[in-house]
């Protein structure tokens, strides 16, 4: 029998705030253990939480980007559990009235576009970090109380590839909007993965298995592929699939059952009495909406329309927000944005990608300089080699006014036809052997004369202009 997978993800994303969710402790990775702690995040009795407005804002912005409905009245609850990573024995979360409801992400699959629905996004606090040693364990509360946004998908994914496409799309959007760094190594983005199988075409869901706390895309992919196979094997051999939590063992490359305590998931949620509800006005939501950047897909389409870019160029640019901003700033004053884009995609991007001692400049002035330089080339005032030669200094800011530099250093292109013809005749007179080669049919000899003219013009002639002139004059001699 053919089986299909049903996959849903719960993705925890660390929000990019300066401080913790409910206290003013610094949020930073790599600090000495237990240095960013206070009575609130250590769970002292009587300490009261105060909500970080920035965390609410970033969650709402995420919801707006993902097409969620924003809950005008959101409340917080206590999720009770006993484990040493949570000193007060409950996690503050949103159970009944989360900030964002619905929405979704469109992914590309081999069969075309597919919409993965989101059930809701809620805001909560992270647990502390437990470190494991040979004979004991230790708790570091620096991470405790970090604002986490949990994005809960519907079980709409059918393969490991689709799950990764969904996560990649989420990550791109959240990083783009500056909501999170989504740095997987630092645990900024961790997912609990749910997977079940059912006969192809069936509507009822199979028994699901959860794999918790996965922080690498490759691990998630491998774990899902493994579970999909294991569950099919079980069904084929009449071994029951148990609803349980399993752990991915990245060394053994298999999932293993985690015999968690019975009743461990009865969290006895109840309303958090120490926090008042969040009520969002239309004005507040509109204000936060205004802070959202144009998303890559919309930007790609707009840049294709505005500048006549190819889909490929627009796509590449739109994915790199700062590059796209820089290009658009330069394009504003460019005499030909399409040609500027070609130059940008090759030479400017190469410059960005190369190593630099100083951070590349991408401000409005740098964009204006780039545009001014390229306009000189468009006007035929400098040739291609000069354009490339001046580019690094223009981007670094050493050349403030490209037109002035070209003028002062006599770098302007030689476009005077009479002057160029004179150079060609000089070259011919000085190199009779190459002329003979050309007459004997060696067409490559023409290239030699172009080189000679470039030399005579001190690099200021345009090879594209010179080549046809050389050919014409040499052919006339033959």
């Amino acid at each position, binding site marked *: 029998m053919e089986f299909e997978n049903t996959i849903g993800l719960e993705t925890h994303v660390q929000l990019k*705030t*300066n*401080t913790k969710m409910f*206290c*003013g*402790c*610094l949020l930073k990775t790599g600090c*000495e*253990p*237990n*240095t*960013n*702690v*206070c*009575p609130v995040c*250590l769970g002292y009795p009587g300490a009261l939480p*105060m*909500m*970080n*407005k*920035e*965390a*609410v804002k970033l969650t709402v912005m995420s919801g707006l980007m993902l097409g969620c409905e924003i809950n005008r009245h959101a*409340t917080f609850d206590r999720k*009770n*559990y*006993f*484990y*040493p*990573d*949570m000193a007060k024995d409950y996690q503050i979360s949103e159970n009944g009235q989360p900030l964002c409801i619905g929405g979704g992400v469109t992914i590309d699959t081999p069969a075309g576009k597919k919409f993965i629905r989101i059930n809701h996004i809620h805001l909560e606090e992270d*647990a502390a970090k*437990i*470190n*494991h*040693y040979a*004979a*004991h*364990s*230790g*708790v*570091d*509360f620096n991470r405790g109380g970090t604002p986490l946004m949990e994005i809960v998908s519907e079980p709409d994914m059918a393969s490991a590839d689709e799950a990764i496409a969904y996560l990649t799309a989420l990550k791109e959007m959240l990083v783009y909007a500056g909501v999170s760094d989504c740095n997987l190594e630092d645990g900024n983005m961790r997912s609990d993965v749910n997977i079940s199988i059912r006969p192809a075409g069936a509507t009822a869901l199979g028994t699901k298995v959860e794999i*918790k*706390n996965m922080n690498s895309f490759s691990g998630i992919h491998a774990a899902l592929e493994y579970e999909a196979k294991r569950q099919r094997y079980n069904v084929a051999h009449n071994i029951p699939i148990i609803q349980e939590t399993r*752990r991915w063992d990245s060394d053994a490359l298999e999932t293993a059952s*985690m015999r*968690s305590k019975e*009743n*461990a998931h*009865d969290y*006895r949620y109840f*309303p958090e*009495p120490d*926090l*008042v*509800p*969040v*009520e969002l006005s239309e004005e507040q939501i509109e204000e936060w909406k205004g802070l959202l950047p144009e998303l890559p897909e919309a930007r790609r389409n707009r840049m294709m329309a505005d500048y006549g870019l190819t889909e490929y160029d627009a796509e590449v640019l739109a994915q790199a927000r700062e590059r796209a901003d820089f290009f658009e700033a330069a394009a504003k004053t460019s005499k030909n944005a399409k040609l500027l884009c070609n130059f940008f995609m090759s030479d400017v991007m190469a410059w960005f990608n190369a190593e630099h001692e100083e951070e590349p400049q991408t401000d409005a002035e740098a964009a204006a300089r780039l545009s001014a330089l390229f306009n000189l080339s468009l006007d035929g005032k400098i040739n291609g080699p000069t354009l490339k030669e001046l580019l690094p200094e223009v981007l670094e800011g050493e050349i403030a006014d490209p037109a002035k530099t070209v003028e002062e250093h006599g770098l302007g292109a030689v476009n005077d036809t009479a002057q160029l013809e004179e150079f060609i005749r000089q070259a011919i007179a000085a190199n009779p052997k190459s002329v003979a080669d050309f007459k004997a049919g060696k067409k490559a000899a023409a290239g030699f004369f172009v080189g000679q003219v470039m030399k005579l013009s001190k690099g200021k002639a345009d090879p594209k202009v010179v080549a046809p002139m050389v050919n014409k004059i040499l052919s006339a001699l033959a």
Partner: protein
Amino acid sequence: MGNDVKIDVAYVAELARLELTDEEKALFQKQMEGIVDWVAKIKEVDVEGVPPTMHGHEEVNAFREDEVRPSMERELALANAPARTGDEFKLPKIVEGAES
């Protein structure tokens, strides 16, 4: 919450990691049922159209700006730890990833 609220002290004690004797369980069961019954009097009031209330006041949006405030001295934070390991709160050896 229209249904009768039932309480199972033995189960709640297990969730709360409380060790109770059988006598205690029986005593607390009776006492807790008394409390639940008493609170259930609220059901006699017609609350049709009244939204659920979590607080005794109507304040909303008690926000804090995202500004860093000084944390505690680490030694002070660790002073209450029954045991410490290096600069961390010491625990018995626990199985990695068993919860959370």
